[in-house]
């Protein structure tokens, strides 16, 4: 082999990233990744975004991935760089987001000696990655990177970590292109049983009280899944509800859309789940936030579950039909079958079902009253939605009440425009995530709907936003409380507000200004809309400190340990007694 054919392991890694379609990598340097940073310095086709904390690098990559459908890419150093990334990796695992994280490692001959900045990164990250590698043989380096991208993006997507000892990065190797041999063999997923598809289609046609319940799998399956689920809804004329992760898959203004379901879902969505006779779950996982008390979950329905991950089927809810596969592929078959049946059969009347649903809708479970000058947080979101609905708007959130209000009051018309930490519920997700989204969509309007406490968790990313001139809008619903914690303490712990007040808040306007960012503060309702206008029309980043009613609670709510039909609509709701068993739930 000619010496001039040889490149360093680090260069090979960067070439492999480019070959796998990576355009942007989010990272933070350190001793163990200096050769990789050197290779990045010399590579023109890869853009590196310097975050201010490795957790933020992963969330930024998640935002990038979720809003584009591509794999997000991360680079961190050994030891503390890798351990800082762990929360992000866990977040990506829980929400099935494709991410490849490269971490530096001490040179192979020092592994196991407690060397400076050595951590057992593959050991620590094993339970929070779909798969991980420690590359100890430079000859395998290229294959491993190629494989990492395949694993992250195929099947149920997830994070993959590749740990790269420094000596491997420096070893001279020959670059190996991605071969198109298939991913390593697994017994092929069973081909989809057409008999089952036809039975399911018949069930749907004959259902008197059907419900379609969609989740994040619809988003992961690509935009065509959203089109297909909407077709399914129309063909069956069924009500449809979406999980937190699925919002956007069906346009929120679709007449059959009942809103989000689950703990803070609408009354009509949860009651329809409870009383339906046929339930079809597409790409959701019967999460505990959705089902409420399991032994009272939708007691009288036939259940169908479509999921790409076989382990999701019958994990917590036993179903009558489990179909393993990609949502789009299965929905396509189902829609075709339904169209066929439509020509042959009378579809069961859903008149009484819809009039029942209209009764539930009349409860107006998301109703609230904006009066006086104090801003209701719900109103803040509603106004934000009205002002931004004509833009190509991407929303990220942190975690807490504001997140739920965003899910309830912001309407999503398209997939991939809503980025939130659902499974792990990571405060501090939204701001870095918005960095990734804005990088991917430089021309679009990107808003982080934030809570003041969550904002403080990753606010160092303001510096990243400034460096890359990202016009992210940070819309803080400032209630001066860890509102969601305060709410649970009010409901379940006798209003003993232990450590949930956000003391010593910064002046967000001054904080913004110290970064050279525009800061806004709104305290009165009649200034809200003009402030939102000002925020949107400003070219650069903005922090909008929206002072909202402090003690507002997020309703409706299924109290922990309760069932869908036991949901409460407000604090005075008499059913509001969390059971003994419910107190132990998270």
């Amino acid at each position, binding site marked *: 082999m000619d010496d001039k054919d040889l490149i360093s392991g680090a260069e090979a890694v960067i070439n492999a990233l480019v070959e796998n379609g990576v355009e942007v990598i989010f990272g933070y340097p350190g001793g163990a990744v200096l050769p990789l940073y050197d290779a990045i310095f010399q590579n023109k086709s890869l853009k590196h975004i310097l975050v201010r904390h490795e957790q933020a690098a992963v969330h930024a990559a998640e935002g990038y991935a979720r809003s584009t459908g591509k794999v997000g890419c991360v680079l961190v150093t050994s030891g503390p760089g890798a351990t800082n990334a762990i929360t992000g990796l866990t977040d990506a695992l829980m929400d099935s987001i494709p991410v490849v994280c490269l971490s530096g490692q001490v040179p192979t001959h020092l592994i196991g000696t407690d060397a400076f900045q050595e951590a057992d990164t*593959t*050991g620590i990250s*094993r*339970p929070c990655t*779909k*798969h*991980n590698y*420690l590359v100890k043989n430079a000859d395998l380096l290229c294959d491993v990177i190629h494989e990492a991208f395949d*694993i992250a993006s195929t099947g*149920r997507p997830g994070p993959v970590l590749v740990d790269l000892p420094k000596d491997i990065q420096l070893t001279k190797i020959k670059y190996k292109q991605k071969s198109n*041999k298939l991913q*390593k*063999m*697994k*017994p092929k997923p069973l081909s989809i049983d057409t008999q089952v598809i036809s039975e399911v289609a018949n069930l749907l046609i004959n259902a008197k009280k059907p419900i379609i319940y969609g989740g994040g799998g619809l988003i992961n399956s690509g935009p065509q899944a959203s089109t297909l689920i909407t077709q399914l809804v129309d063909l069956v004329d069924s009500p449809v509800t979406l999980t937190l992760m699925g919002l956007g898959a069906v346009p929120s203004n679709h007449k059959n859309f009942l809103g989000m379901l689950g703990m803070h879902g609408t009354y009509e969505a949860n009651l329809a789940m409870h009383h339906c006779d046929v339930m079809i779950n597409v790409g959701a996982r019967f*999460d*505990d936030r959705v089902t409420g*008390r*399991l*032994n009272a979950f939708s007691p009288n329905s036939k259940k169908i579950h479509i999921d790409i*991950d*076989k*382990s999701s*089927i*019958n*994990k*917590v809810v*036993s179903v009558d039909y489990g179909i393993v596969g990609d949502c789009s592929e299965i929905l396509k078959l189902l829609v075709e079958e339904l169209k066929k049946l439509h020509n042959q059969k009378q579809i069961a009347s859903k008149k009484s079902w819809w009039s029942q649903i209209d009764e539930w809708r009349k409860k107006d479970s998301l109703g609230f009253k904006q009066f006086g000058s104090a801003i209701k947080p719900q109103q803040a979101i509603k106004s934000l939605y009205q002002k931004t609905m004509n833009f190509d708007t991407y929303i990220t959130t942190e975690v807490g009440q504001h997140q739920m209000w965003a899910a309830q009051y912001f309407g999503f018309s398209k997939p991939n425009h809503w980025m939130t930490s659902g499974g792990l519920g990571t405060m501090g997700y939204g701001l870095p995530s918005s960095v990734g989204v804005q990088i991917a969509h430089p021309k679009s309007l990107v808003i982080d709907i934030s809570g003041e406490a969550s904002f403080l968790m990753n606010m160092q990313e303001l510096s990243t936003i400034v460096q890359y001139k990202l016009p992210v809008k940070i819309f803080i619903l400032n209630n001066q409380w860890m509102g969601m914690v305060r709410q649970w303490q009010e409901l379940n712990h006798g209003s003993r507000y232990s450590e949930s007040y956000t003391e010593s808040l910064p002046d967000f306007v001054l904080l913004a200004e110290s970064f050279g960012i525009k800061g806004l503060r709104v305290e009165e309702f009649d200034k809200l809309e003009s402030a939102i206008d000002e925020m949107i029309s400003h070219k650069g980043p903005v922090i909008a400190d929206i002072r909202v009613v402090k003690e507002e609670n997020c309703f409706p709510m299924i109290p922990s*340990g309760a069932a869908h039909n036991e949901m409460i609509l407000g604090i005075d709701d008499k059913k509001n007694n969390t059971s003994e*068993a419910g107190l*132990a*739930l*998270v």
Partner: protein
Amino acid sequence: MSVYQNNEVKEEETSRTLSLIVDNQPGTLARVIGLFSGRGYNIESLNVTEVDQKRNLSRISLVTRGTSMTIEQIKSQLLRIVPVRIVRDLTLEGPFIKSELALVKLVVEGANRVEALRIAGTFRARTLDVTLSSFIFELTGKPTKLDAFIDLMRSLGDTEISRTGVSAISRGNKTETKLLDQIQVN
């Protein structure tokens, strides 16, 4: 954390023997074990060794316990692990053989030595080591047979036990060769 109420319908838990084919590489076993500890399943016995050098594959024989819903979960969770190639449920597939090897050291003097040898003979244990005050026996067979033998030995004196865990294989002429042939040799 997802905390669910206990299901009210209680199905009897049964013992199941699983047989896995996995890549023989660092981390694979850790992932398998981590799955069981992380998700609260139990491992009653586990045994692992390379069985195919060419393809670099190991077999893990694993005995676990649970309701059929739990076992189905365990199997599909195992298949999510990238280097786990094949998951077979021997208990479900049909008749299979389960065998284990035990090494039993017995410290014994006087009259009990004769008794120990007599029992070992009855069980067809091999005597691998003898001193004036001890024996080491080797016994293979069903775990229950090993249990019985070990119990008897314990009543004769101080013992030290080493067991391999169950190794299992299905009966009859069916093999995995076709499936294994699909696995690429790297």
